[in-house]
């Protein structure tokens, strides 16, 4: 279980972005997070994945803090896939950085074999996003923070991506935090939803 306990965070002194925010995600659970632009959704996601350190509170994974080395059990997926890959590497190398997915696993995410020899700039945003999601599913990963990963995709690609991820998450009992502005998407995917505003997290029933 991933537990965020009383997190507080601020970028500028005196202007708290998050104040005493607590959140729990169980293995296999899908949690939705919505909120206005600048409310701190991505910051909360980054805190959960260990990319930022909270000023107060802590992130606990099964009674221990997040590890400092090795494959992080909580992986963050950013909105812009083109920033998430080394522009000088080919797709095969990008994938291999984390693990080597089988052909079937590639197929499940629609990652075509002929993409592997291409550079990131030769793939579309949607194609690259699928590569990034597949990369993040390395062995040892137990939670995903999907930070608006489908915002830039067309509806059909969105459905394909979420279906593939859903299937994989069920198989491996992955916990997923879905950050999105799209209420309909969150309703459809998540069993539990939260709204972030004024530095506070409120559950949506």
């Amino acid at each position, binding site marked *: 279980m991933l537990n965020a306990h009383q997190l507080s965070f601020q970028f500028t002194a005196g202007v708290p972005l998050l104040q005493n925010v607590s959140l729990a995600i169980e293995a296999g659970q899908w949690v939705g997070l919505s909120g206005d632009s600048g409310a701190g959704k991505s910051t909360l996601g980054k805190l959960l994945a260990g990319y930022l350190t909270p000023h107060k509170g802590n992130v606990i994974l099964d009674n221990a803090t997040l590890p400092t080395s090795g494959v992080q059990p909580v992986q963050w997926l950013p909105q812009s896939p083109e920033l*998430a890959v080394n522009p000088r590497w080919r797709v095969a190398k990008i994938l291999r950085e984390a693990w080597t997915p089988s052909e079937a696993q590639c197929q499940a995410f629609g990652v075509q074999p002929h993409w592997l020899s291409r550079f990131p700039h030769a793939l579309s945003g949607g194609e690259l996003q699928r590569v990034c999601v597949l990369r993040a599913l390395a062995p040892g990963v137990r939670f995903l923070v999907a930070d608006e990963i489908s915002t830039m995709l067309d509806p059909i690609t969105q459905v394909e991506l979420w279906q593939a991820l859903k299937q994989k998450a069920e198989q491996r009992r992955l916990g997923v935090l879905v950050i999105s502005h799209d209420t309909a998407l969150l309703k459809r995917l998540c069993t539990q939803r939260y709204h972030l505003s004024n530095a506070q997290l409120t559950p949506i029933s």
Partner: protein
Amino acid sequence: MIRHQPRLRALLSAGITLLLIMGLIASQWLLGDTPQQMQFDARLAPPSLAHWFGTDALGRELWARTLAGLSISFWVGCLAALLSTLIALSLAALAALSRRLDALVSLLIDTLLSVPHLILLMLIAFALGGGTQAVIIAVAATHWPSLARVLRAELLHLRQAPYVRISRALGKSRWFVLHSHLLPHLLPHCLIGALLLFPHAILHEAALTFLGFGLSPSQPAVGVLLAEAMRYLTGGYWWLGVFPGLGLLIMVLCFARLGSNLRRAL
């Protein structure tokens, strides 16, 4: 037309510089001991068809001595610029590893930048006893700070890039991130940095030698030629200073142009 095509300009200056380098290397083979041959019947002869650049006080051909001097300068400049770039790159990489090391490297850069170049150069060259090696070490040890500062800033910026953070989160070591993500990105910067360091390096080599802290007077280095010319300049023997100086200027300009054209093109 060329004015608006940075790649073409870079290619053109690369071609000219390459020709210059090849000419210098070829001249080393072709000249033999011409730069040292004395002709006592033609001392301080002005430029003519027989003596293209004139001769010096010992009747040695100045064109041969200028070419030999430029090729010595070229090798010294190459080695010094290469060493300098390596120092800059290593220190920038060190700074990227931790905050404490970064503070230490920044302090070192600021300290070196605050000391006048030439004084430090003279001190190091003097402490090492002069000679080619001392000049190379002195120039290399004093020219890295500005490049190190650029590389450090670039590395610090790159370290925050999402793909670098993700690489760490995927369990990759700092060393892996450094040599597979960060350093390949810095190579073009290093190439241009080294090219821009090169003219500085040869100018300072010539200056050190001119001041008597550098290469030995028996070598026909450009600095030695210029220092010798100083003694005869008042006698109207202008060619002794003009030709080696012009040669140095052309070489420095070639490399400086190549560096700045490449920076625009890449």
